[in-house]
């Protein structure tokens, strides 16, 4: 009852001083809104980086031949021929932390269908490639292990290749194409993946059994890469170590010798990216906290002035029977109401700003629940904290002096 009355008194005071209240709230509103919007941007960027990477197969591990030096000239890794099929087989046999693996050979050439042709890359892999790269088929089917063993002339093509060599919209599956004059039967079309984070068109590919590409197109016996996927993203670093160990034994490297290969996991990429965006988030939070703090000081300022300005009123209230605690509560409720209302408006504005940024500026955002909870809690606490001191001061006033105050 008593609290309800004090609540009424406090709301009345707020309503009577609309402009002043609004100006005070503005600090809190902007503070909360910026916390939410900035964290949403930070989270959104982080998430978009993560999804981009996981589309590449986030638990993917790649093994490439290491750079060598010939006569003082360092060589590009791709010219190395140190990665062989027996390396792949050793990994396949010994590694315990890998769920899928495939040898990879790659080459470039011209895809030809009748009068249409298109320069593209061919990747020779085994059927597990699709699982590693997290690619689905749009139509048709993947080649089989048997087709790998027989070096069958079958291929799957990406959407970009389809668009360019089948411009009339005919169904590619079942058609014959030529890659560097070797005829291939198209048995499937890969689902569109678009560009990867580095701007490479992931749909501009031809996939064929690695045996076929090795023998019929490239005429090589070594491998360009070995691709694998770790059983889980958490195990990826351990899988890297395991694969390295197997390859060192396989290549008979002494303890003093460096690796003649590179094993990389996406985990490293992820952590690089997320630590970058973590820093971004910290920076944003720091900026936002400062605006919340300034909002809080704004509340204190206004409440302090308000106590001074209403000294006589406080004296009157005390004369007609308000206790110190009543006055304290009145001002505290006022401060809390201002900060909570400001907080609610801030959340709304923040969400609005987030939607705006997402829709019109095309910046990926993701509103984290914790950012709403935190900013709201902070602003309520700010209200109590910064409202307490002036309220305390008001309640301690001597009614006689307060009444005489001009």
């Amino acid at each position: 009852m008593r609290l309800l009355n004090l609540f009424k008194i406090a709301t009345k005071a707020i309503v009577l001083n609309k402009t002043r209240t609004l100006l005070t709230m503005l600090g809190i509103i902007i503070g909360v809104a910026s916390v939410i919007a900035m964290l949403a941007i930070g989270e959104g960027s982080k998430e978009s980086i993560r999804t981009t990477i996981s589309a590449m197969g986030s638990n993917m591990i790649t093994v490439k031949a290491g750079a060598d030096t010939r006569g003082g000239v360092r060589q590009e890794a791709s010219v190395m021929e140190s990665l062989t099929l027996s390396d792949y087989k050793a990994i396949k046999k010994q590694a315990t932390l890998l769920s899928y693996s495939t040898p990879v050979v790659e080459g470039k050439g011209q895809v030809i269908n009748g009068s249409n042709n298109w320069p593209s890359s061919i990747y020779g892999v085994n059927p597990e490639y699709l699982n590693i790269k997290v690619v689905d088929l749009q139509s048709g089917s993947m080649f089989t292990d048997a087709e790998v063993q027989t070096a069958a002339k079958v291929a799957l093509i990406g959407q970009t290749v389809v668009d360019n060599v089948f411009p009339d919209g005919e169904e590619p599956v079942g058609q014959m194409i030529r890659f560097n004059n070797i005829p291939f039967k198209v048995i499937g079309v890969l689902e569109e993946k678009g560009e990867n984070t580095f701007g490479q068109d992931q749909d501009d590919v031809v996939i064929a059994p690695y045996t076929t590409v090795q023998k019929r197109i490239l005429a090589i016996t070594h491998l360009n890469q070995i691709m694998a996927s770790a059983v889980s993203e958490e195990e990826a670093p351990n899988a890297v170590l395991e694969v390295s160990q197997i390859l060192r034994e396989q290549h008979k490297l002494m303890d003093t010798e460096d690796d003649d290969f590179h094993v990389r996991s996406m985990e490293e990429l992820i952590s690089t990216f997320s630590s970058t965006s973590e820093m971004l988030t910290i920076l944003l939070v720091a900026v936002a906290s400062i605006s919340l703090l300034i909002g809080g000081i704004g509340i204190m300022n206004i409440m302090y002035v308000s106590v001074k300005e209403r000294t006589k009123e406080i004296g009157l209230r005390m004369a007609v029977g308000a206790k110190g605690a009543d006055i304290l509560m009145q001002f505290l409720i006022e401060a809390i109401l201002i900060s909570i209302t400001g907080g609610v408006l801030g959340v709304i504005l923040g969400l609005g700003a987030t939607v705006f940024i997402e829709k019109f500026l095309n910046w990926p955002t993701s509103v984290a629940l914790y950012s709403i909870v935190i900013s709201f809690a902070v602003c309520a606490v700010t209200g109590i904290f910064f409202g307490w001191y002036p309220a305390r001061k008001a309640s301690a006033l001597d009614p006689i002096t307060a009444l005489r105050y001009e």
Partner: protein
Amino acid sequence: MSKAIIKIEDLKREFTMGTETVHALRGISFDIKEGEFVTIMGSSGSGKSTMLNILGCLDQPTSGTYEIDGVRVKDLSRNELATIRNEKIGFIFQSYNLLARTSAIENVELPLLYNSKVSTEERRKRAIEALEKVGLGERLHHTPSQLSGGQQQRVAIARSLVNNPVMILADEATGNLDTRTSYEIMSLFQELNKQGITITFVTHEPDIATFSSRTIVLKDGEVMQDYNNHNVQSAANELAKLPKQDD
């Protein structure tokens, strides 16, 4: 014989100003009985304001006893004093002290807001009754800025009545008003007094004292005179005698 509402005995109040002790009240004793209309007079420095503060339970005496409606005020805590002010005393100030931008009725309700025994409906009902008593039944929702000085003081009087106090304590209540309006206010006080309300009126204007039934004159912190006024003037009559206004 009506009972004494206020009992004051050998009341002293001292203030310490640096190293000096100021004796504002030097042993004052008097009783105020129910239904009396007392004016406390005195020039500035007479201890009048200190007396008022103590009577109003805004201040505590240094020594001596002060009893209001059977409650010994000495040694009460700040909160207990607030409750006494809330339930037993109605304050009227020289400068009205109404809440700005707040309607008359809400101003009158104010003391009851701090009394949790009074419900919202009763609060409103009593505020309307009080405003009707002072002749402002038509102006319940006017804010102070829409009211004249005399009307504002009437709102303040209604506010002092609303908690059914044992005593109304007025501090120079006509000090800011012209003669005509102050006579109007005084006649309202006399009317309320006739209805049995005890009024203590602190003033330095001698003509105000002629409207009361008893006058206590303070000087240098002591009671100089304390006499019953056998020839109480009627404020309404005095008002009628004033020259007619041209406006």
